[in-house]
């Protein structure tokens, strides 16, 4: 009896130790992890160098490209984490993933001379996706913030959204802004693991909060009277309203600036490459075209593109 118990405890301890070690590994050991990837990547670069040269788009200002870029070009596909249910930005349709994020990701893939391969990313799994090398980049209404910047890198920003509030048509609760939500009497819905939730907790700490994995569930919750408001980036809300204009409306009083970035793996040379592609899109008008064709279709006027962060490029 005692023997058996000790053995079980032992197994649990071994498992826990393994977890701790691997946690530390992914936490502080980024350099080590990179190093192991460097060797084969470097070989590839050498052997592929002439091909690279010939394939690189000359008109892009897409200067350089290190191991990561070379590895993507060798594999022939750009693995993109993208939202599948984010109207106007990333929606999975029978004919493929469409939306502003999809346009940007496709432009990056074209510039690299490879095919984009979309995978569904939900808000909570975007960092793990990159950290575990499931995708090359994340274009998923991905707000740049400090905590995330510590574990992944961001190209861009390629768009600045603002957090706003969606209410039932006619605004029956008279919600005017984020201050109106700061009461336990009103339930506000947003998505688990999102910056919007963090902002809500910070700016309306007394709010009663409901969270789901997708905004469509928030919309359902509002229809059932479980929530008085949904808060997140205005563009997302516009997408929801676009689908059910009779049910919802935007209060149009944004209270944050949410710069959207393209997430890449920590330290990856892909970041500067993507910035180059974005700059090209800004300059030749294809950024504005992509915006008008997607987000703009919901009646939002096209803003000036935000300034890119080229630090370290």
């Amino acid at each position, binding site marked *: *009896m005692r023997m058996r*118990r000790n053995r*079980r*405890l032992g197994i*649990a301890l071994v498992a*826990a130790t393994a*977890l*701790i070690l*691997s*946690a*530390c590994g*992914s*936490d502080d050991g980024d350099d080590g992890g990179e190093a192991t990837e460097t060797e084969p990547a470097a070989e590839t670069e050498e052997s592929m160098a002439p091909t690279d040269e010939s394939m690189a788009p000359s008109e892009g200002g897409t200067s350089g490209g290190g191991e990561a870029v070379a590895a993507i070009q060798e594999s022939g596909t750009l693995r993109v984490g993208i939202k599948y249910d984010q109207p106007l930005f990333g929606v999975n349709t029978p004919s493929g993933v469409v939306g502003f994020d999809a346009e940007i990701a496709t432009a990056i893939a074209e510039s690299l001379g490879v095919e984009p391969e979309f995978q569904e990313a939900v*808000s*909570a799994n975007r*960092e*793990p996706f990159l*950290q575990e090398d499931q995708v090359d980049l994340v274009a998923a209404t991905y707000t740049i913030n400090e*905590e*995330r910047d*510590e*574990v*992944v890198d961001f190209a861009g920003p390629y768009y600045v959204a603002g957090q706003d509030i969606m209410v039932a048509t006619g605004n029956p609760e008279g919600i005017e802004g984020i201050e109106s939500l700061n009461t336990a009497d009103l339930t506000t819905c947003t998505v*688990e*693991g*999102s910056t919007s*939730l*963090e902002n809500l907790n910070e700016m309306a700490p007394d709010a009663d*909060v*409901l*969270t*789901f*994995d997708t905004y469509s*569930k928030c919309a*359902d919750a509002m229809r*059932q*009277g*479980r929530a008085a408001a949904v808060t997140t980036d205005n563009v997302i809300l516009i997408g929801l309203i676009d689908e059910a204009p009779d049910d919802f409306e935007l209060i149009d009083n944004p209270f944050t600036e949410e710069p959207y970035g393209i997430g890449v793996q920590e330290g990856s040379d892909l970041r500067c490459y993507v910035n180059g592609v974005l700059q090209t899109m800004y300059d030749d008008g294809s950024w504005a075209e992509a915006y008008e064709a997607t987000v703009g279709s919901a009646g939002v006027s096209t803003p000036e593109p935000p300034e890119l962060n080229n630090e370290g490029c």
Partner: protein
Amino acid sequence: MLEFYTEYWPDYWDGTLVTLRLVVISFTLACIIGVIIAGFRVSPVPPLRSFASGYVALFRNMPLLVVFFLAFFGVGDLGFVFGPFPTAAVALGMYTGAYMAEVIRSGINSVSSGQAEAGRAIGLGFIPLLREIVIPQAVRTVIAPIGNLFIANFKNTAVALTISVFELTYISRKLINETARTWLSLLGAAIIYTVILLFAGWVFRTLEDRYAIKR
């Protein structure tokens, strides 16, 4: 690493309390449902038997996630809107209750028919027969499987995060997002689950030993 846990311990603690409340309520409900449904299944009344097997068939063959969504959005669409926590407690209780009914039924079947005959022969009716003779003996054979069910029920509470119950796994995912330290955040929850469940396993083994002595 330790600073991480000292800093976020209050969050973990809140989540642990929600998880424990959910476990206690759902598992109590599962025990009650299990006893009633198992009683129906062995009862001499055919409609009760059919009801009970229908119940078990329904809940055993549906993924828990579907049960949760049906209980939350489906029942909500019918006009019965309950909060996330009560919905999760009842849905999980009904789900585990179906498994509990099967465990209890097999326990009842493990009691020899002679025991029930002797009980009937001294004039015990159906309910007192179950209460005095069959269930107390069945309990011995079902402690271990009920222990397994408890552990499964405990871990299944994590699914409640999908309907906005801020339990332990939800908290660890929230910390992932706030701190972007995936492994560390999940490890905290893993340690808490493991410690509690190792303790629960010990309790059930002790119960098993105690009830086994008399036989």
